[in-house]
């Protein structure tokens, strides 16, 4: 392994050992807390830089507790990566620590097990058995209410996490509105 490889491993292990204090996110913008997702009734206004405890998310709206108030803001108001590593984000309630077992009890495929394995061509061939016919795929999509659509591609430009900013005097955007990415790529599939 190269020196860089060692460094990567050390960094990865160090990152795993750091435990984050909380699920807190940070407001990127001065934002109105709303009584309902997508609604107009304002509960309170929270300043950029304030921390938010995220309670739940529906689509692109997040219910947060901030400055002693609870309300809804759009995801564009928050910086989710503000916490320092470890367990962060929206607690969806789908996972509890009780669902996680020790790695020694986990079946199959740690990196070491993967690297030591002898290739199994029969398993690969078996995958072909499950390839559906085009008509089956079409029927499946129709039954699931899936309709192909055109969209405007997302911005390809790497965007650094926004520094919290106030709309007053620094060109900030109105509450709940993130700065629009300017560059739109052409990902024409």
């Amino acid at each position: 392994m190269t020196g860089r490889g060692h460094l990567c491993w050390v960094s990865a292990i160090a990152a795993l050992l750091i435990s984050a204090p909380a699920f807190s996110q940070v407001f990127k913008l001065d934002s109105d807390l709303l009584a309902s997702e997508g609604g107009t009734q304002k509960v309170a206004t929270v300043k950029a830089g304030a921390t938010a405890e995220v309670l739940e998310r529906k689509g692109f709206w997040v219910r947060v507790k901030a400055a002693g108030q609870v309300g809804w803001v759009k995801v564009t108001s928050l910086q989710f990566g503000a916490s320092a590593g470890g367990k962060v984000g929206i607690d969806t309630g789908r996972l509890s620590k009780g669902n996680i077992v020790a790695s020694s009890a986990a079946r199959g495929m740690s990196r070491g097990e993967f690297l030591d394995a002898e290739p199994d061509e029969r398993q690969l061939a078996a995958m072909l058995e499950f390839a559906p016919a085009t008509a089956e795929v079409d029927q499946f999509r129709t039954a699931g209410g899936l309709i192909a659509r055109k969209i405007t591609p997302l911005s390809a430009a790497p965007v650094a996490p926004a520094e919290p900013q106030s709309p007053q005097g620094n060109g900030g955007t109105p509450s709940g509105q993130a700065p629009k990415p300017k560059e739109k790529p052409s990902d024409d599939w």
Partner: protein
Amino acid sequence: MTIGEGRMVKGMALSLLMVSLICFSGQAAFAATDEENVGNAAAAKILAAAPLVKDAAVQEYLNLVGNGIAAGLQLPYRWRFGLIESDHVNAFALPGGVILVTRGMARLISNEDELAYVLSHEIAHVARKHHYKVVQRQRLAAKANTALESMGDGSLKDLAGASAQIYARGLDKSAEFEADRLGVEIMTRAGYDPAAALGVLDTLANVDGGDGKAEWLFATHPQPTQRIDQLVNAGIADLPPGKGMTSRAPRFGNFRARL
């Protein structure tokens, strides 16, 4: 130029054209076959460590969701999707169109739209040839490495051994962010709800980082919250929401119940 000389020049030009065509077509055919060989070799190694889940119903469902997404892309791949026997939380994109999802990952997913995001992220890796390009670069740059030199011979074991290292190390962060962004585009074009991507990343953000089941995933991917920020900054909240989610709920429920 005499008539004879003219015929000779024309003949030479025709020969050059034919040679060029043969070389070009040969190279194109080799490239496609080689990409699939590299992917198949790595897939065979993953499947040796974690075989396919022995349940035709779950495998068929996964292939219907995956092929339903990939069909709209019209890329020259023979897409194959497999659910594999592993409690670890991970998914793999293999060059040539093989996508593998662990049972551990599938258990974290709460609806078909979230599954569509996981598969679309992996489809984007294949479409952008992220892993295959690393293989190609290493072939050029690491001639002294015996394992990589032997990749050209096409032996399954050698191919698998060399390409496995790429999966163990992971890709650059930029490739993962690109797969997130393109994955969201792909699933949205297919009709799924783009917000489901945030649902998966929310869930991954709540997986205990020190738990061994997600160690490989976390060591080879950016933090889930960074991935959420990248998607939000890229404009995911401007995409149209999905429709018909309730009609997809029963069939996903059947899939989920079998995991």
